[in-house]
């Protein structure tokens, strides 16, 4: 993992490659962890909804296609 950032000063056009500060590294890690947590929560939510849907269809004794027909 590169611990550098590319900074462009748009007023001069100067491009610099700068080492990250400890705070920036921590922020990046926190952002990445927050994103991973959020994706995990989204995936868990999707899995729960899919399981609920399957259970409901089974209770009703119909297929997903038949449910679509009913609601269409």
């Amino acid at each position, binding site marked *: *993992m*590169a*611990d*550098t*950032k*590319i*900074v*462009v*000063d*748009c*007023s*001069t*056009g100067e*491009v610099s*490659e700068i080492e*990250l500060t400890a705070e*920036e590294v921590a*922020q*990046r890690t926190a*952002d*990445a962890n*927050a*994103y991973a947590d*959020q*994706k995990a929560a*989204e995936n868990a939510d999707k899995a729960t909804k899919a399981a609920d849907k399957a259970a409901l269809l089974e209770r009703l004794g119909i297929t997903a296609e038949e449910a679509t027909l009913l609601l269409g």
Partner: protein
Amino acid sequence: MGTTFTKIASVSVGVLGASSIDFSSIPSTYTDLCVKISARDLAASGSLYVCVNGTTQTNQTMRRLEGSGSAASSDSQSSIFFPIDGSSQTSNTFANTEIYIPNYAGSTNKSMSIDNVTENNATQAFADLIAALWSQTTAINRLNFQCNSSFVQYSTATLYGVSKS
């Protein structure tokens, strides 16, 4: 109305990669800003984060429509981010993104339109349309782009100033 795109700055990531790309001291002389990004993340699951006037994702919200290759979804988020290619996608493929920021130097909250696609030789590839908001009234003078790990070599970002007359 005539519209002129002027390239303000462009970055191509070198062999060492880069954890972020930062456009600072953006002049306030244009009507709108447009950023075109071609990026790949070293992480398995890539994502790109947009930070405005700093390096943190504060005062941000967004609404997103997303297609994943097998499903369509929509959601709201309290930060501005979207998927880009990572190491679990086909080698040497990059996501393509356009971020359009109207009235970036004005004194109202700043909206963004983001059009993003990932590339993958498999079922799962993402297409995102995002309406984002940075709820601050100060002019935008800095845009910082981060990813989960680091942008790989040949990732590029080009910032355009858009003039209307």
